[in-house]
């Protein structure tokens, strides 16, 4: 059977009906990885022993005719910023080159408990800092759809793995767009849930008020299933929300007729890529014409201030979170330091990459005495203004649709020398992180050169159901068109 583009439901059915064993399914994925990932470089570590043991457990249950857990045998991979007990975790950095975590990320533990087979850890920008995966200390990932181009970032490996058939679904993380943008560049579905919907325990921290864990999948339905597994209050993460988890998969069937879709003027500016604009506008029109949605022009006036706000808040929080990498308890330690202070400074300077250093410096500067009010505090106030934009919008509409990224995937090396130009790639995604609303990127067409284009849907806090219903309705309408 063709295991290249299975959905979660497809994999589960195949295993339940004994068309294939979990062991064979895992082995086929590993064969494909061995044959093709040399070029793409989506994986950093393969965890074959753990994976085959998990697959064997599922096969034993299936052989006895016992009921199977909800993700039984589904081959998955995890972005290397989430710790996996006993399996090397690097965060894409040399500073953790040999780090083997003694504990599991909650989201990963929940997937494992549901029977998923974790094939390995995927490549990413160092400490999730980047928009192209070119900041990985282990070399970039190539976009499976065009290998001269980036897969997006920072979760480039996780997005590419799904696009290339190396895993049925993966987990990534999103702080400024790092799930949605690579999903858009690679032509897959990428979901960033509401802040606090999924526990951050075990997610190596970049910016604690902005970090999210979420899935990459081939369909909206799969994203709904996975969210149902990983979402929910975790006592180990005090910011994980005490909000009940709906049956997302059941919500998908509900009609979207009459739903109001907001289209913000600030995301459809003069001079944006014409093909991106057309693809997204066509998608919105399809939802209006075929699914009975109402299109409402809206404004999110503080949008132009989102990127500067993000690059102050995120870097400030990162400077604090990355202070723990000091060579004392784990990670790289510089040889031959005579004093403790030398050890801290050299270990960090030797093993952090340039983008990480840049952000630590910017964040430290923004928080330092004399500058705190002008930069960090100011940014936190603008964050409130952005939140108010969304509150006002959601009083009028149920969902907001925008392009995910201003352009399709750019070429490897195109933006590496200009940090600011790279930062501007996040322009449509950062606001959702700052405000905490959920967002999903769904493939909505290709450019003339065959590059995937994604549309982003955002909804109110904890209203992922709306994202799934609209996304599924769009997939359906597009297939029928």
């Amino acid at each position, binding site marked *: 059977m063709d295991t290249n583009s299975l959905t979660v439901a497809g994999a589960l059915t195949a295993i339940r009906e004994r068309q294939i064993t979990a062991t064979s399914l895992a082995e086929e994925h590993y064969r494909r990885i061995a044959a093709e990932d040399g070029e793409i470089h989506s994986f950093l570590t393969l965890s074959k022993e753990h994976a085959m043991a998990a697959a064997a457990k599922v096969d034993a249950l299936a052989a006895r005719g016992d009921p199977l857990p909800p993700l039984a045998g589904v081959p998955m991979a995890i972005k290397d910023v989430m710790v996996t007990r006993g399996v090397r975790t690097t965060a894409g950095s040399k500073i953790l080159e040999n780090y083997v975590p003694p504990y599991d990320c909650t989201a990963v533990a929940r997937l494992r408990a549901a029977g998923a087979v974790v094939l390995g850890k995927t490549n990413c920008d160092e400490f999730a800092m980047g928009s192209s995966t070119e900041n990985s200390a282990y070399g970039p990932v190539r976009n499976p759809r065009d290998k001269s181009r980036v897969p997006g970032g920072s979760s480039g490996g996780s997005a590419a793995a799904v696009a290339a058939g190396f895993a049925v679904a993966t987990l990534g993380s999103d702080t400024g767009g790092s799930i949605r943008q690579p999903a858009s560049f690679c032509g897959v579905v990428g979901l960033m849930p509401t802040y606090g919907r999924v526990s951050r325990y075990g997610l190596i921290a970049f910016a604690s008020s902005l970090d999210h864990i979420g899935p990459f999948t081939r369909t909206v339905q799969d994203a709904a299933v996975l969210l149902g597994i990983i979402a929910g209050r975790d006592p180990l993460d005090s910011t994980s929300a005490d909000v009940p988890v709906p049956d997302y998969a059941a919500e998908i069937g509900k009609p979207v007729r009459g739903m109001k879709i907001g289209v913000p003027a600030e995301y459809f500016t003069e001079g944006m890529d014409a093909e991106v604009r057309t693809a997204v506008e066509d998608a919105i029109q399809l939802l209006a014409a075929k699914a009975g949605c109402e299109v409402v022009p809206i404004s999110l006036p503080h949008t132009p201030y989102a990127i*500067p706000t993000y690059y102050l808040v995120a870097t400030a929080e990162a400077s604090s979170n990355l202070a723990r990498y000091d060579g004392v308890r784990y990670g790289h330690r510089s040889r031959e330091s005579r004093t403790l*202070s030398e050890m801290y*400074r050299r270990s960090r300077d030797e093993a952090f990459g340039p983008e990480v250093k840049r952000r630590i410096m910017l964040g430290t500067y923004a928080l330092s005495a004399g500058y705190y009010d002008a930069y960090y505090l100011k940014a936190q106030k603008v964050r409130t203004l952005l939140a108010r934009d969304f509150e006002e919008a959601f009083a009028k509409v149920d969902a907001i649709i925008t392009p995910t990224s201003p352009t399709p995937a750019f070429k490897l090396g195109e933006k590496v020398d200009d*940090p600011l130009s790279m930062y501007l790639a996040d322009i449509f995604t950062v606001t959702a992180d700052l405000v905490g609303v959920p967002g999903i990127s769904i493939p909505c067409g290709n450019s003339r050169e065959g590059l995937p284009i994604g549309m982003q849907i955002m909804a109110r806090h904890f209203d992922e159901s709306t994202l799934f219903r609209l996304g599924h309705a769009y997939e359906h309408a597009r297939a029928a068109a």
Partner: protein
Amino acid sequence: MRVSEKDVLYVADLANLELTPEESARMVRDLNSILEYVDRLNQLETDGVSPMAQVSDRYGAPEKEGTAKFEYAMRADELGECLDHKLALANAPESDGAFFKVPKVIER
């Protein structure tokens, strides 16, 4: 020019980074370029706007006030499971089996 080489050295000191001269020079350029861009936040009037440090500041239990909003995140102050000592030391760059070993702290 907002940030000088001296500022970069001072901030690197705060951040415990020992930058090479090339890194320092590049950092002066990059920081100035980024700070010039983020300066546009000053176009916005924010007197009287309260800062939003946490999403849950605005979206925590809306019917509760103050610390009561975060009751769900509290637990009893009781001893729970601890990380096994050997596991805790397993990634240590240097250890004597009981502690993490580090170079002597020398008074400046």
